[in-house]
């Protein structure tokens, strides 16, 4: 029975997508209905996985057994994915009401949900990789949903390629892991023996994780992915797909050796810090959220690798809801603006403002989700974030090296920045007055728009997770997630306190900076060179490029003022150099390889003409050649005998 249940959960979204594609007129509704069933089943399914694994084994290749397995953590994540997916489906009905390709959209979305669920259910590395790739594929398909604009297509391609680089390195790691005698079942993974190859495997796996979760050197693809429809961003690029990396880190935790884990933690915190800084300088509404996602994922990665993986997973859950909520709010805002001004739909926060009055439900939902994100008490984000921070502190305390404290300290610092940029966004978008041309008041009647946002906002309250906001008993959800008992110690309270303080400070700072000028034009926004620097992602791309062409760095800095569009020079450069290389090989192929053959051909032909010409006109030359031949034979005879 339970096996079938899993199969239903897995296949229903796909089926829904196909049905939606088959009946395009009612596509959204059909898909949503299927998803709702899935969600209910996923919730129901939690009953069956108490403390044990449900395993469905099958032979995929001869002698090569794979299995689906669900334990408590994945069951909860399955619920999360299906729930958010359901909500996003609902929201999409509203969001895409005017689009002509809805049927395709729901097919893709259903396929994505299917892949994501498969990823969570798979118990074998190869199976996991299969779904991992399918997730990437469907993400690509969704990013290029509005393919008529070639910019979107390019963005989608680059996002997919970046992902694929990481994926293939992960693939290599998996293969090496299998090659080293491991049978590849996640549920029975053990630590690897310490040697060079295990380090290599670890690094490969790590890169895969970093790529999918948009961590430090790979994070550039995520902002690009924002060209897809906003609900898609909410589902894929905030809640689920990017979390897959964290999920994999959680699953493979045991494989990494501790030394490597420290590095992962550092990478995580660096990402979190950078992401937050960049987010603070963005003007695009979705970009802020995208970088914020990167930052939060860095948090999770850090949490995972310092050993607070329970909390990190918990943060994954909470983050999924409030970030999806935020994205849907952003979608709501953008949809509203685009209806108002179809000719020039904007995502630039500088041209918004005062939307509170126009979109009240959105505003309040946004506020709740934002509070959860910045980590104020009574909201879900606070619980998970504090858990990670405390985990990091306790990890640092176990180190002899004082430098280790840099990690949790930075994490605290990040909560200040987070609060700052979220506060800024709230102020710029909802408060004050509208900075564009005049805005008509339009009633928002559609519950299909409001309901998902509201549900997500409600789920961002801390009450669902822990009764007492500042600690205390585990709630049912935490139990399901397998959270460890809380960290104890007398240092816990000051840290919590300082964290809350920093958040409040951040909010205050944002108000000080933007709230006061509320009504006026945002003139001084991003005027300083530093903020441009940060806004452009620390010119990380340009730094990459500098490795290849140092002079380009300078040029890029000069041109970046004009070119505000974020380009991705590193991968561009790789792509360009690959293309150049391919041109070179093509030339090689044509000139050298084929040329060599032609050369042989011409040599033979020249020889041929020579031999052809060697039939002289003069018959007496015939005699000469024949007799010379005879003479040569005889000379040979003379010396041979």
């Amino acid at each position, binding site marked *: 029975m339970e096996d079938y249940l899993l199969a239903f959960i897995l296949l229903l979204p796909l089926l829904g997508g196909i049905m939606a594609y088959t009946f395009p007129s009612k596509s959204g509704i059909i898909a949503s209905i299927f998803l709702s069933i899935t969600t209910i089943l996923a919730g129901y399914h939690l009953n069956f996985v108490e403390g044990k694994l449900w395993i469905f084994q099958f032979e995929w*290749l001869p002698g090569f057994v794979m299995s689906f397995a669900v334990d408590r953590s994945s069951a909860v994540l399955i619920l999360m994915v299906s729930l958010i997916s359901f909500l996003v489906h609902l929201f999409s009905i509203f969001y895409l009401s005017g689009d002509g390709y809805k049927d395709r959209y729901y097919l893709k979305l259903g396929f994505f949900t299917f892949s994501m669920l498969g990823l969570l259910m798979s118990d074998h590395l*190869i199976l996991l990789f299969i779904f991992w790739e399918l997730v990437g594929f469907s993400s690509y398909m969704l990013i290029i949903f509005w393919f008529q604009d070639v910019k979107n297509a390019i963005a989608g*391609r680059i996002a997919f390629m970046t992902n694929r680089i990481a994926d293939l*390195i992960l693939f*290599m790691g998996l293969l*090496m892991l299998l*090659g080293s005698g491991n049978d590849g079942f996640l549920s029975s993974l053990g630590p690897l023996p310490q040697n060079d*190859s295990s380090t290599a495997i670890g690094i490969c796996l790590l890169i895969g994780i970093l790529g999918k979760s948009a961590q430090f050197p790979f994070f550039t693809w995520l902002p690009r992915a924002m060209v897809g429809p906003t609900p898609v961003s909410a589902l894929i690029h905030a809640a689920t797909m990017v979390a897959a990396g964290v999920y994999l880190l959680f699953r493979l935790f045991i494989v990494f050796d501790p030394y490597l884990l420290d590095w992962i933690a550092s990478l995580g915190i660096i990402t979190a810090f950078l992401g937050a800084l960049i987010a603070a300088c963005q003007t695009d509404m979705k970009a802020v959220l995208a970088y914020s996602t990167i930052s939060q994922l860095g948090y999770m990665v850090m949490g995972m690798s310092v050993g607070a993986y329970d909390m990190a997973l918990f943060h994954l859950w909470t983050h999924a809801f409030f970030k999806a909520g935020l994205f849907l709010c952003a979608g709501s805002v953008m949809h509203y603006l685009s209806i108002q001004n179809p000719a020039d739909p904007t995502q630039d926060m500088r041209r918004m403002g005062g939307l509170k009055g126009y979109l009240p439900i959105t505003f309040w939902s946004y506020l709740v989700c934002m509070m959860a994100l910045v980590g104020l008490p009574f909201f879900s984000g606070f619980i998970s974030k504090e858990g990670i921070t405390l985990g990091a502190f306790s990890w640092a305390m176990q180190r002899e090296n004082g430098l280790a404290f840099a990690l949790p300290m930075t994490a605290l610092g990040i909560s200040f920045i987070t609060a700052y940029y979220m506060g800024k966004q709230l102020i710029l978008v909802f408060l004050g007055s509208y900075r564009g041309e005049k805005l008509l008041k339009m009633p928002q009647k559609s519950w299909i728009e409001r309901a998902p946002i509201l549900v997500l906002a409600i789920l961002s309250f801390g009450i669902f997770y822990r009764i007492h906001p500042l600690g205390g008993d585990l709630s049912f959800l935490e139990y399901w997630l397998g959270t460890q008992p809380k960290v104890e110690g007398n240092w816990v309270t000051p840290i919590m306190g300082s964290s809350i303080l920093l958040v409040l400070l951040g909010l205050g700072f944002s108000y000080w900076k933007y709230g006061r000028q509320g009504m006026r034009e945002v003139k001084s926004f991003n005027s300083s060179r530093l903020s441009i620097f940060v806004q452009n992602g620390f010119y990380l791309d340009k730094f990459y490029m500098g490795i290849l062409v140092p002079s380009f760095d300078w040029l890029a800095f000069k041109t970046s003022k004009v070119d505000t569009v974020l380009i991705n020079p590193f991968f561009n450069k790789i792509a360009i150099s*690959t293309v150049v290389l391919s041109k070179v*090989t093509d030339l090689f192929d044509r000139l050298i390889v084929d040329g060599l053959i032609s050369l042989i051909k011409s040599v033979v032909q020249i020889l041929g003409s020579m031999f052809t010409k060697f039939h002289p006109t003069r018959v007496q030359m015939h005699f000469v050649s024949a007799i010379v031949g005879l003479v040569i034979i005889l000379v040979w005879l003379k010396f041979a005998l």
Partner: protein
Amino acid sequence: MSSYLLSLIIWMPLLGAFTLLFFNERQTSGIKIVALIFSLIQLLFSIGLVWRFDPNYGDHLLTSFQFVEKVSWISMSLGSFGSFNIDYHLGVDGISLWLVVLSSLITVLGVLASWKLKQQVRSYFMLYLLLSTSIVGCFLALDFFLFYLFFELVLLPMFFLIGLWGGPRRSYASIKFFIYTLVGSLLILVVMIALYLSVGVLDPSSEMMIHSFNLLHMMDSNYFIEGSSLAKDSVLTFMGMPLRAVAFLALFLGFAIKLPIVPFHTWLPDAHVEAATPISVILAALLLKLGGYGLFRIVFSIFPDAALHFGYYIAIFGVLAIIYGGLNAMTQNDLKRMIAYSSISHMGFVLIGLGSFTVEGAAGGMFQMIAHGFISAALFLIVGVLYDRTQNRKIENFSGLATKLPGYSFVVMIVFFASLGLPGLAGFVGELLVLMGAFNVSAVDGMLPNWIGIVAVIGLLITAAYYLWTIQRMFLGKYWVREYSWEPKMKDLEIREWLIFTLLILGIVVLGMYPKIILDTMNHSIELFIAHVGDLKIKP
């Protein structure tokens, strides 16, 4: 009935070709229907073959052949030279079984794809059916001479099919194709002769050595005559190399040109670009497989020792093909040429799989061949759809086709992604298995170093890069085609095309989702093959 099943499969198309002789050149639809019927019958028979096939037959490579037919064909006395024996010897095992099925299927699809042909229909289909006979014959022959006969017989119809129904530079391409492959097959011929003279059994009655072309004898070192040129103890050398190694290399080269490996690949893009769509399909889906199959059945099985010695270099050739083919594919602006280069790239995996000497690797190589058969057929048909409508296939001439031709673009997406190795589609499984083999081997006994696998993975990346780029350039963005006159012709797929593509995509998806369906029947044979080839592997 079942004892003649293989013969029926082989000769059915030829029978069709003879039937066509009774048709008038102008009865085009009749000709097409006859061709279709005969190829369908062939397909039916090969499905019957699968039905009756016992996947666990035999316990040694030499005894694992089923449906064996063996009739003496030529037995002529050549005086003191001895008597000359060629058998009509057929048999099928797990390795060849699916290639046979693939060929029959592709033949049917090819007939469907050439349905719109107008000029010289009768000659076309006669040559086409002859080609089909010879390809299937290659896969089923167990006598080296018979194999060689079919192998050479592939050349002639192909030469004319490219040269007569091809594009503007068809004559150049056909000559190039012919000469390249002829050089390869002449190398095979020399080695075949040497093998024939090295293999024999002592006839008890006349006390004379009876040589034979029996491939099974050639695979068995017991049948090699002591002191003959290619026996294990042969002392003959050629330019300082043992003759056995030289023979192996010559044979390898002969088949590798067909596969093709990199420095000898330039016939392929030209042939593909100039050939008509169905012929390209046959070329990519079946003809390249002849090379791969020859490597399995002949090169590696007969010279396992030399193969083991050169395994590493073979894998290097594989990697070279993957990277080089991929890079070249990226820069092509002709869609068909790009796909041709991608074929080269994909066939590199077969070499790596073989070079790894593992069951996974070999099975992966075989699977890759089958999967590539489906995928490349679909790819070339995709080009054909475009070419049918516009007589053009330059990538830069099209943009945003997804808007105008949604069905077509849907097919393209699936096939392209299958080709770039998206899991769940056929292309992935072969690559996975091959890479598993490559990495396994590096961990277990160091036959192949890790970098082979790593570079192969980079090759996958390149594949992804050019496919995605192509999708972006041709199918995404705003709808636009270069010539105004193409506009009215840009229609979505018609029923016949849907039928072909549905079959192919079905195959691609089924193979990708449930590869066991063919791996199960193949696996036993692959295991026996590896046991036979690898039993010399001495671990330090």
